[in-house]
């Protein structure tokens, strides 16, 4: 397996695991407070919808000429990656609340209970919320699987990495019977943001006609460069943005990493 293929598999696996953890929280909230069969029905319907989207868009992407594909996919991945990275940097520096699965679970469960009207049969609320949760989280994964896979002609590898992540998270969810609050979601999102931005830059520039010095090895340098830049921004924000309540920015321990590593 080449370095780029390992990068593809790791990026897709991490992105998919993060989205699966978020979807799992919603499904668990619906299942435990409303109706398990309806919640799982929503999961099944959303999975089917995602499969149709992938089956429709996958072949369409692979017929594009490689140069066009790389510019389009590189550009989209870069826009997408910068969104992930921006949120991850804001979370790491304390400017945005970190994703808290237990809190989200509590909110979803409370809203479901407050609605009342549960029945032993089909529960439309549990079905719809589970469907929407899985579809929306899954769309991001489908997008990453398709763009990464099509660009490297490795859709099976990307789909395999995504399936492995979903299976792992589902198994952990079944075992824990609770939201996976201990998964280092914010760190994983930081890593995915770095990977998507780096791959996007690499493919986008190549598709636009640029030649990277060192060929594929430039990708490693890009990943390292983006990682260092993002951590540097976190470091600067921690020192310059005041704490809520008018306190001075707290000094960061020398041994504490400013952000995270991949």
């Amino acid at each position, binding site marked *: 397996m080449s370095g780029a293929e390992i990068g593809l598999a790791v990026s897709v696996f991490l992105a998919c695991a993060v989205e699966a953890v978020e979807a799992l929280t919603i499904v668990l909230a619906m299942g435990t407070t409303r109706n398990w069969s309806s919640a799982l029905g929503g999961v099944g319907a959303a999975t089917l919808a995602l499969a149709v989207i992938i089956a429709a868009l996958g072949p369409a992407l692979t017929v594009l000429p490689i140069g066009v594909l790389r510019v389009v996919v590189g*550009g989209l991945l870069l*826009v997408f990656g910068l969104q992930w990275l921006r949120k991850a940097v804001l979370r790491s520096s304390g*400017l945005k609340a970190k994703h808290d699965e237990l809190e989200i679970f509590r909110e979803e469960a409370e809203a479901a209970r407050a609605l009342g009207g549960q029945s032993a049969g089909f529960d439309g609320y549990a079905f719809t919320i589970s469907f929407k949760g899985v579809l929306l989280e899954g769309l991001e994964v489908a997008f990453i699987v398709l763009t990464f896979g099509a660009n490297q002609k490795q859709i099976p590898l990307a789909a395999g990495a995504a399936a492995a992540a979903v299976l792992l998270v589902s198994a952990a969810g079944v075992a824990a019977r609770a939201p996976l609050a201990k998964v280092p979601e914010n760190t994983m999102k930081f890593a995915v943001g770095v990977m998507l931005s780096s791959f996007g830059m690499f493919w986008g520039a190549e598709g636009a*006609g*640029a*030649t990277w010095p060192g060929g594929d090895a430039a990708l490693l340098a890009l990943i390292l460069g983006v990682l260092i830049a993002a951590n540097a921004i976190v470091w600067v*924000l921690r020192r310059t*943005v005041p*704490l809520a309540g008018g306190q001075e920015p707290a000094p960061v321990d020398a041994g504490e990493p400013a952000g995270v590593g991949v």
Partner: protein
Amino acid sequence: MSRVRAFFLGVWDFVVGDDWRTALGVALALGLTALVSETSVSAWWIMPLAVLLLLALSIRRAAKGATRSG
């Protein structure tokens, strides 16, 4: 009509997100890379530089007037 509009708004939100300036910057940087790569000048450095600037500016906009939670 409203469903079509909602669909396109959803696609826009999904792809572009809440910072359209970054998406525009990426498109411009790719265009500039394509233009420069047609000349004898090396074009690979444009995207890393653009990404660094776009990320820093996007975070600067988000951090403006904000406070940290610790």
